[in-house]
């Protein structure tokens, strides 16, 4: 957070650098099932962010000492590839990635029915291919779609977005310059139907009133993102107007011998 109010990030008509109004989301694209090897996957674009998420699991837990006899553990690894940012980032985890991995794991652990898979690990990998602020939000949004795509039982999808403050105004979905020179950054994630908040961080300076406004903007946005997540999964298995009756009658799998 630069907090540098000399940089004009929002003009007198309330228009931001990229033409958006204070309460507008960037263009979002979500695709489910984009990788072949992974059990589940998703690709998400928030404006210029490009994030890929993959899920492997439930599978045997490695390292074994981390096994939990009563449930699965959710291990998320968030990473930014070297050319995702302007100045090349040396490959390998840094402290920021470790922290982001942790908070995303915690959010996902809440929604996954981990008791169904004792002693296993559900591994979630988030790779930021191109970054433009809000990558952890795009990452969590992608990760929850990838989990559903992998057929993992969960309570709900988890949309995520960041709200911020620039030039003393609360704005939705910060892009890069706004994140660098703005006055506050508030990434959040929740289950829209229940209002349960699963991820919340803040840095910068916000009054109570500004915070309340940010929550209002963020909540509205997360409902919209949730609809896009649902749509991505529905499109993956688009039905050609109904299907043959009884052929695929869901029943316990019978077996037949040749």
């Amino acid at each position, binding site marked *: 957070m630069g907090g540098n109010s000399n940089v004009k990030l929002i003009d007198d008509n309330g228009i931001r650098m990229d033409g958006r109004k204070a309460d507008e989301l960037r263009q979002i694209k979500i695709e489910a099932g984009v990788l072949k090897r992974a*059990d*589940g996957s998703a690709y998400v674009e928030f404006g210029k962010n490009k994030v890929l998420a993959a899920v492997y*699991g*439930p*599978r*045997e837990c490695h390292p074994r000492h981390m096994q939990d*006899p*009563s449930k699965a553990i959710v291990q998320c690894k968030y990473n930014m590839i070297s050319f995702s940012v302007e100045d090349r980032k040396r490959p390998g985890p840094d402290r920021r990635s470790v922290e982001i991995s942790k908070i995303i794991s915690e959010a996902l652990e809440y*929604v996954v*029915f981990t008791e*169904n*898979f*004792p*002693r*296993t690990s559900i591994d979630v990998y988030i790779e930021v291919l191109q970054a433009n602020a809000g990558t952890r939000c795009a990452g969590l949004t992608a990760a929850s779609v990838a989990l*559903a*795509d*992998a*057929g*993992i*039982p*969960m*309570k*709900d*999808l988890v949309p995520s977005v960041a709200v911020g403050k620039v030039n003393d105004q609360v704005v939705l979905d910060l892009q890069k310059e706004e994140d660098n020179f703005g006055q506050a950054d508030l990434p959040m994630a929740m*289950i829209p*139907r*229940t209002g349960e908040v699963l991820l919340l961080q803040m840095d910068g300076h916000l009054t109570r009133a500004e915070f309340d406004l940010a929550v209002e903007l963020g909540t509205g946005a997360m409902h919209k993102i949730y609809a896009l*997540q*649902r749509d991505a*999964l*529905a499109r993956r*298995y*688009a*039905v*050609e*107007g*109904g*299907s*043959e*009756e*009884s*052929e*695929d*009658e*869901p*029943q316990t*799998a*019978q*077996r*037949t*011998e*040749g």
Partner: protein
Amino acid sequence: MNRENEHPSREIVIPGDLLDSGKLKAGSGTYVQDGKVYAALLGIKSVKSNFVNVIPLGGRYIPSPGDTVIGKVIDIGPSNWLIDINSPYPAPLHVNEVPWRVDFGDTARFMNVGDTLLAKILMVDETMRVQVTMKEQGLRKLQGGQVMEISYSKVPRVIGKGGSMVQLIKGMTNTRIFVGQNGRIWFDGEIESILFAIRAIKMIEENAQMLHLTERVKEYLESVTKQEGASSG
């Protein structure tokens, strides 16, 4: 209510979708919150005998006692083998559970790493420790042919109602096909015929929701085996 059984809705549901708020009971693939039933899986909503279920569109095979599965030996010890059953849980197979008399340390002579076998799930405990057996009629080491893996959730579609789909493929390609409950399929027959059968099953796996899938599969098999269409399904 009978209608619901005959024509299950093809409605795709997403985790968190409300399935029912009163009359129906929570079946598989669902969870209950505040007296309402929600989807826990990405799948197809299905109502049967007053239960609302979600039939998964993806997901791993979770072993259940009594299932017949196609396993692969991935490790070997002096008195047991470790079997991968295409599930998060590998299953130990003890020398007491095979049809041969195996001396201590002699296990590799009967089955080695990489071998494929037909086994049955004996038991699964609450921490999901699985045991398998081969000590039943029909269970054996499989040799020759080809093996493939499909998404476990597609197994019912590949088998078809009363086995009709897999019988169609077997008949038209003149192959033996065994569909394990764990999503592994073993084929035996002429090499060309096996390739056609595999392609037919891949077609089903990729187009499980398609209208008139049986017809499409039949057309494909007719074109490659150059048979005239026989009876309808």
